[in-house]
C-alpha cells in the first residue's frame, strides 16, 4: 500500500509539471502588465523597465517559468505584485477560512444527504423519495449567488438573524459562536448544492446495491432489513459515494468562489477574484497550483479510501 502511494505520487509529478506549465503560460497570455498597475502612471519608461527588470518580467516566458519553478522548490511562491507581500503568507491567511467554510459545508451536506439518500432508496417512489429528489434537483440547479442573495435577503436583511457577510465580527471576541453565526448562511447555500448532488448518488448507488444478489442472500439468511441496509448494503454503496467525495474534496480550495463573493468570506475565492482584478499573477499562480495539488491529493485519497472500503481492490 505504501509503495502504491509512493508510486501514485511519482505519477502525479509529471501531471503537476504539466499543470504548472499550462498555468504559467495561460497567465502570461494576459495583456496588461502588473507593472502598469502598480507603478505611478507618471513613471518614466526607464523606471518601468527597471521595475520590470526587478520583477524579472523582461525575461522570456520560459526563463520566467524556470525561475519561478526554482523558487518553488525553495518553498518560495514569490511576492504579490500588488502588495509585495510573500505569496505564501497571503495564501496562508486565506486557506483557513475557505477550508473552514467548505469543510463545514461538505460535512453538513453529507450528513443531510447520506441518510436521506438511503431512505429514498429504501422507500423508492414514496412521498419522501419525491420530496428529497425535488430538493436535490433544486440544490443542483439553483445558482449559488441567487440562493445566497435570497438567504441574505430573508435571514440577514429581513429577519436580522445572521450577519450578511465576512467570517468574524471584527475585533469581536473571536469566539466559536461568532464564527458559527457567520457560517450559517454561506454553509446553508453551499450545503444545499453539495447535498443535492450527493443525495442522487447515494440514492442510485443504494438502489443499485439493493438489487444485488448478495442482498438476497442476506435476506435469505433471515437478517432484518435494518442490518441488511446498514451493514450489507451501505458498505457496498460506499464505493461510488467515495468517488463523489473525491470529486468534492478539491472544492475545499476552489469551490466557493461565488459564495465567498456574495458573503464576502475572506477566503481563497475572494482572493482569486481580487487577484484577477489587480492582475496579481504570482498569487493567481499559487492559488491554481494549490488547487491542482489538492485535486491530485484528493485523487490519491480516493484511491486509498477505495481500498479501505472495498477489499477487492488491493494495490500492489
Amino acid at each position: 500500500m505504501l509503495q502504491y502511494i509512493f508510486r501514485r505520487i511519482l505519477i502525479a509529478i509529471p501531471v503537476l509539471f504539466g499543470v504548472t506549465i499550462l498555468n504559467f503560460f495561460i497567465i502570461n497570455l494576459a495583456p496588461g502588465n502588473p507593472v502598469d498597475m502598480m507603478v505611478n502612471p507618471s513613471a518614466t519608461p526607464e523606471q518601468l523597465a527597471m521595475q520590470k527588470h526587478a520583477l524579472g518580467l523582461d525575461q522570456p516566458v520560459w526563463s520566467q517559468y524556470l525561475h519561478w519553478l526554482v523558487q518553488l522548490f525553495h518553498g518560495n511562491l514569490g511576492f504579490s505584485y500588488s502588495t509585495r507581500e510573500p505569496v505564501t503568507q497571503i495564501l496562508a491567511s486565506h486557506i483557513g477560512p475557505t477550508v473552514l467554510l467548505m469543510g463545514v459545508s461538505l460535512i453538513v451536506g453529507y450528513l443531510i444527504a447520506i441518510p436521506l439518500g438511503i431512505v429514498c432508496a429504501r422507500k423508492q417512489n414514496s412521498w419522501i423519495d419525491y420530496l428529497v429528489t425535488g430538493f436535490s434537483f433544486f440544490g443542483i440547479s439553483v445558482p449559488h449567488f441567487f440562493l445566497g442573495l435570497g438567504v441574505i435577503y430573508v435571514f440577514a436583511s429581513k429577519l436580522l438573524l445572521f450577519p450578511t457577510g465576512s467570517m468574524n465580527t471584527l475585533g469581536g471576541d473571536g469566539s466559536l459562536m461568532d464564527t458559527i453565526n457567520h457560517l450559517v448562511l454561506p454553509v446553508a447555500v453551499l450545503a444545499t448544492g453539495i447535498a443535492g448532488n450527493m443525495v442522487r448518488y447515494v440514492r442510485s448507488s443504494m438502489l443499485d446495491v439493493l438489487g444485488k444478489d448478495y442482498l438476497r442472500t442476506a435476506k435469505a439468511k433471515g437478517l432484518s432489513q435494518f442490518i441488511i441496509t446498514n451493514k450489507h448494503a451501505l458498505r457496498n454503496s460506499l464505493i461510488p459515494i467515495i468517488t463523489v467525495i473525491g470529486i468534492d474534496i478539491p472544492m475545499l480550495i476552489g469551490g466557493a468562489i461565488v459564495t465567498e463573493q456574495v458573503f464576502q468570506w475572506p477566503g481563497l475565492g475572494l482572493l482569486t477574484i481580487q487577484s484577477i482584478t489587480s492582475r496579481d499573477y504570482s498569487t493567481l499562480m499559487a492559488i491554481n497550483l494549490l488547487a491542482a495539488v489538492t485535486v491530485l491529493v484528493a485523487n490519491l485519497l480516493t484511491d486509498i479510501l477505495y481500498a479501505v472500503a472495498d477489499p477487492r481492490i488491493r494495490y500492489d
Partner: protein
Amino acid sequence: MGELLKVDKIKTQFQTEKGPVTSVDEVSFDLKEGETICLVGESGCGKSVTSLSIMHLLDRNGSVTEGSILFEGKDLAKATEADMRKIRGNNISMIFQEPMTSLNPVLTIGDQLTEGIRLHMKYSKTEARKYAIDMLKKVGIPRAEGIIEEYPHKLSGGMRQRVMIAMALSCRPKLLIADEPTTALDVTIQAQILNLMKKLREESNTAIILITHDLGVVAEMADKVAVMYAGQVVEETDVYTLFDNPKHPYTLGLMKSIPHITNPDDMRLDSIPGSVPSVHNMPKGCRFYDRCPHAMKRCLEEKPLLKPIEDKQSHSIRCFLYEKEEQDYENKKLAEKEVSS
C-alpha cells in the same frame, strides 16, 4: 417420512410498466422430509420465481396472488415478513446460481457465515466462529481457519459455492432450495459440488428443491421431478418414471433435443421448433400449443389441467393427450373411494 412442503396452485404476479404480468401460474408440487425434488425447465419457465415465492424473496413489484404454500402446516403465502425472517435461513435456506455475486464482497467469509448462526442458533461470537469453521471443514474447504478471515473474491467459484452451502446448512434447515447451484461452474467442479450435496443430504436428512435445466443433474440428484414450461408444471413424477416413461410432449422433446455424450454417434437430434411464448402474449389454451407436434384444435382453446394419470407411480401431466389415462385414474380413485366408503 412426513409431508414437509405442499405448494398448491400458486400464482405469482409482477407489476410492470405494462401492467401486471403473471410469471408463475398454477404451480403445485409437494415434498416429504429428506426428499429431493428437481424443478426442471428452460430459462423463463418460472422455476426460480417459484422458489423465490416460497421464500418471499421476490422483488417489491412481485407477489404471490393465489394459492397456498404449506410448510409444516403453516401457509407461507400468508406469512408476515417477521414470520418469514424466523423461517429463512433457519428452517428453509437457499443457495443461488452465481456464487460470484451471491456473497457480499466487502464482508469476510466468517462475518457472513456467523451472522446467520448467531441470529438463529443464538451462539456467542466465539462459539459461532468455531461452529463456522467446522461447517467449512464439512463442506471440504481446506484451511478453514484461514479462509474464514478472507474476503469472497479470494476464493474460486467452486469454493464460494461450498461456502454458500456451508452457510445454507449451518442452521440445519429442514428444506434447502438450490437454484441452479452448479450452472456457473465447470464440469469437474460441478461433479465435486453434486457429490458434496449428495453426501450432506444423506447426513442431515434435509429436503431439497433443486432447480436446474440440466437433465443430467436431474438424473443424478432427484427423487421427484417437476417439469416446468412457461410458468406451469407440465409433468410431475418420480425420477425413474420420468426418464423411463416421459409423457408430456414437451418433456419428450426436451429429452430428445439434448446432445449427450452417451448418445449414439449418428443419432440426429430432434429439436423443438419455435421458442417460449412471451409473458405478455401467453396462449389462451395450452402454452405449448405453438411448438407441440401433437397439437389439436382443442389445445388452442382450452386450458389443460395438471392431473394424475394411471401409471405405475404417481404421475401427473398437463396434457389432453392423456385425458383417457387421467380419466382412468379418476375413475379408479372414485372406485376406491366407493369401496372404502
